[in-house]
């Protein structure tokens, strides 16, 4: 530890701390443009000049490490004169755009010029003109004249994310920030450069000219799009959400967002947004609809009893809403049939759940089944952050295709789809077959041996087994598709002495919160409701924020279930798929329209504030529940509000006792005909079902991915093409492109692609490529 004095106040900080960070710890504000804790020191902008005693000149606080006994002055005549000089240089070619610049009012160049700069410039020569208002991708424009060349954006993309898409071009005063090869930036972290830019050089296109800082309202919120639950701040003007920014929490996260979270906020205003209630295909008023639905509920309860009513919830609402639904089902209806609509079967016991702090300390990270880059992009960034901190980080991908990518290199084990659990049990048995837990795990496996695509040898598997058992801090990112992985994870926790943390990358984004609110989230519950519906035992189904056809793994079965129910009521932001299967559709309120708590994949509860009023006739769930209860002439009191936070566990979900390790069943391998493809589903946050007009240009044109060999065989060229697929349950057409990480015989398709429903054929199904005419005939 090093002791130093800043502005006559003493502080002790660890060795290697920069003066600017030490000052910040004391609450002393040193102006900064180029420095960012995540990106490290650069010293490009020179605005952070401070005076250090016994040093002949002013030094930059962001590149000077603290030394024992250092005496620093962050203000004073010399410092202010130095900063004034720096600002004069920065402003030489800076245009007088402040009235038309979107950054005006929240711009560090404005603020520091006001604080330190001189009132008038001395430079009479004409300013150099550069490119203005040039789009660098669909969401961001660059104004090169306003740039102060701090290089935050360039360093963020190149060094931090590892996707070199921005660079400095030119020399001296002609230097500009530009994209590599003058191609549009396509990184899904591109939006972060808007937050990073300290001046008005990189600006958001959807937010362009929408508002000025003084007519905005900002509320703290949480991104609802994937289980990461990034902290955001939502900006609204006149009752409309117009911007989402990252909200850094010191010591916990940097406030990075993916483009889905940053620009996908307009789902509340798209044309498809449900603004009125619909009963039997007729538009009606909200009051009329609650009366009708209330009478349905009354009739169903009288005629068929309590157990004929079921609730299906989507898992994207707040925990409070989940709690209200659960209490309504319990107290008013009296049914226990409440299930969360899910697309994967896995469940992670709370006790195994790790946190993002585990990622920051990990020495081995294992991706199971899914590349986190697609499903939970910001987790990929956290892994990359750890990789930069600790280049010795071992990353292992286990799945039906190569899950690693060049930004975080690692070993890939490409196995048959759906065999993750069996493969892991096999790898563990290779190392310690005699261990009783491993023996129990592999009791049913028999002579199972995995087949590898690629150059994996048995030695590699043995090494994986050792890494799983002996690494010092193991973090597993699990996609939840193979439910038997749960047993493997429990076994690992039982076997290992060091930390074993699991982060579930599967949705729905608030499933952990629903569990806390008292709604069991296991897949069997959902399956039971679907089964009973098909048998005709359910007469009234409330689908609240759920879309069974989209989520449920078997589309035909979901259709049969919905068709067999007398009355299906949907509460949501949009029409569910195949709205003719629903008898009532009423408009609900969602994220940014209701206050509430969301639980992320860490099991961390985070509060999101309502920012705007629900549009049209849409109402929060509790309004509907209250009026339905009223129709039954039952009291339904939700006061006092439920507090989801636990006194002992703080903002984390309290862990429970872990279940027993069960054996992994031997996976059945379907017979593959020559030329057949195995369909593998993935979660893709861009295709998560929330419509967005802003994101439309970024929606993947070719969501399906196949190997080069298959593409050649099927005649798919560059950049991609349409492919007809026939499975046992029907045919679909998929837009596919080549991805070199996909092995031959596998087609990877995200869940819920509009027009290409994966659940029509089934995850893991064997499919045949057919002509497109055959698809259109069906």
């Amino acid at each position: 530890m090093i002791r130093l004095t800043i502005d006559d106040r003493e502080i002790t900080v660890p060795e290697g701390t920069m003066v600017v960070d030490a000052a910040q710890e004391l609450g002393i504000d040193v102006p900064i443009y180029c420095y960012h804790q995540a990106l490290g020191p650069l010293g490009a902008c020179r605005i952070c000049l401070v005076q250090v005693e016994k040093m002949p000149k002013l030094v930059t606080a962001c590149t000077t490490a603290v030394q024992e006994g250092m005496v620093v002055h962050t203000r004073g005549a010399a410092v202010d004169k130095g900063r004034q000089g720096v600002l004069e240089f920065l402003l030489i070619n800076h245009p007088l755009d402040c009235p038309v610049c979107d950054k005006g009012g929240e711009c560090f160049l404005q603020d520091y010029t006001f604080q330190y700069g001189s009132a008038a410039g001395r430079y009479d020569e004409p300013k150099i003109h550069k490119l203005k208002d040039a789009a660098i991708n669909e969401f961001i424009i660059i104004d090169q004249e306003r740039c102060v060349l701090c290089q935050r954006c360039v360093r963020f993309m190149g060094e931090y994310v590892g996707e070199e898409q921005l660079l400095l071009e030119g020399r001296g005063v002609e230097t500009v920030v530009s994209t590599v090869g003058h191609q549009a930036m396509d990184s899904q972290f591109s939006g972060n450069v808007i937050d990073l830019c300290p001046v008005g050089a990189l600006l958001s296109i959807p937010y362009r000219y929408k508002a000025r800082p003084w007519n905005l309202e900002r509320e703290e919120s949480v991104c609802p799009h994937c289980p990461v639950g990034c902290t955001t701040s939502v900006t609204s003007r006149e009752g409309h959400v117009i911007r989402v920014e990252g909200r850094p929490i010191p010591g916990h996260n940097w406030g990075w967002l993916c483009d889905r979270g940053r620009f996908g906020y307009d789902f509340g205003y798209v044309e498809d947004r449900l603004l009125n209630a619909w009963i039997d295909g007729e538009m009606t008023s909200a009051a009329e609809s609650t009366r009708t639905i209330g009478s349905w509920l009354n009739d169903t309860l009288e005629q068929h009893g309590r157990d004929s009513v079921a609730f299906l919830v989507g898992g994207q609402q707040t925990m409070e809403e989940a709690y209200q639904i659960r209490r309504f089902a319990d107290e008013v209806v009296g049914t226990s049939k409440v299930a969360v609509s899910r697309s994967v079967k896995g469940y992670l016991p709370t006790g195994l759940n790790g946190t993002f702090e585990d990622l920051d300390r990990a020495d081995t990270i294992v991706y199971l089944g899914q590349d986190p880059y697609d499903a939970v992009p910001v987790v990929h960034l956290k892994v990359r952050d750890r990789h930069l901190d600790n280049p010795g980080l071992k990353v292992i991908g286990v799945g039906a295709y190569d899950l690693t990518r060049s930004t975080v290199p690692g070993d890939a084990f490409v196995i048959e789809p759906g065999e993750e659990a069996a493969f892991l049990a096999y790898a563990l048995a290779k190392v310690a077959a005699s261990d009783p837990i491993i023996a129990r795990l592999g009791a049913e496996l028999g002579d199972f041996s995995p087949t590898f695509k690629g150059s994996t040898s048995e030695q590699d598997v043995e090494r994986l087994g050792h890494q799983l058992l002996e690494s010092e801090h193991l973090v597993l990112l699990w996609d939840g598709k193979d439910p038997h992985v749960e047993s493997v994870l429990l076994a690992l926790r039982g076997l290992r002495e060091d930390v074993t943390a699991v982060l579930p990358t599967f949705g729905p984004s608030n499933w952990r919160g629903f569990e806390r609110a008292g709604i069991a989230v296991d897949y069997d519950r959902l399956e039971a409701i679907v089964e009973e519906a098909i048998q005709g035992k359910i007469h009234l189904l409330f689908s609240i924020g759920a879309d069974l056809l989209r989520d449920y793994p078997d589309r035909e079965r979901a259709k049969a279930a919905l068709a067999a129910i007398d009355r299906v009521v949907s509460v949501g932001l949009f029409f569910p798929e195949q709205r003719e299967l629903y008898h009532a559709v009423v408009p609900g309120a969602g994220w940014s329209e209701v206050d509430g708590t969301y639980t992320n994949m860490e099991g961390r509860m985070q509060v999101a504030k309502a920012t705007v009023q629900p549009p049209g006739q849409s109402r929060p769930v509790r309004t509907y529940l209250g009026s339905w209860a009223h129709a039954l002439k039952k009291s339904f009191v939700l006061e006092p509000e439920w507090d989801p936070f636990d006194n002992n566990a703080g903002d984390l979900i309290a862990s429970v006792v872990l279940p027993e390790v069960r054996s992994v069943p031997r996976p059945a391998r379907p017979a593959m005909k020559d030329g057949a493809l195995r369909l593998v589903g993935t979660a893709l946050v861009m295709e998560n079902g929330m419509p967005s007009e802003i994101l439309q240009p970024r929606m993947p044109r070719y969501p399906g991915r196949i190997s080069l060999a298959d593409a050649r065989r099927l005649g798919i060229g560059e950049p991609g093409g349409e492919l007809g697929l026939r499975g046992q349950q029907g045919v679909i057409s998929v837009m596919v492109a080549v991805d070199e990480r996909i092995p031959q015989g596998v087609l990877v398709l995200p869940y819920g692609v509009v027009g290409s429903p994966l659940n029509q054929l089934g995850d893991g199904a064997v499919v045949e490529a057919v002509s497109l005419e055959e698809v259109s005939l069906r």
Partner: protein
Amino acid sequence: MLEGVKAIAKGMGTTFKALTEPRDTIAYPEKRREYAPRFRGKHMLARDEDGHELCVGCGLCEAVCPAQAIRVVAAEAPTDKPVSWTNRYSVDYEVDLIRCIFCGMCEEACPTNAVRLTPFNELAAFNRLDMIADKEELLSPPVRR
């Protein structure tokens, strides 16, 4: 009776005397007062010589307005017909003339000298909505007769 005649004569005397004296009032609306050159009346939005709107929709008037009488919504200027001299312009500009206290701070804050307070002060309407001056109204300032 004589007393009565006297009193009437005195009263009429005062009346006729006052008839020849200079008046304190003017015959509005036939005649109007001359105001000081810096009189602050209703707002206008100015154009430049080419007819382009000067307002860039920066919202500084909105920010400075102590009565919160101004609402500005900016947008990207249409490219097909030149409206503004920059690519940003105000698509909506409203002044609530009931709220306005005619302090002139909007005029002072305007970086492009677009908002100006004219001497026009004949503000009257039959309902409150008519007292909200929209952009069209402000772009064609009324002239004081």
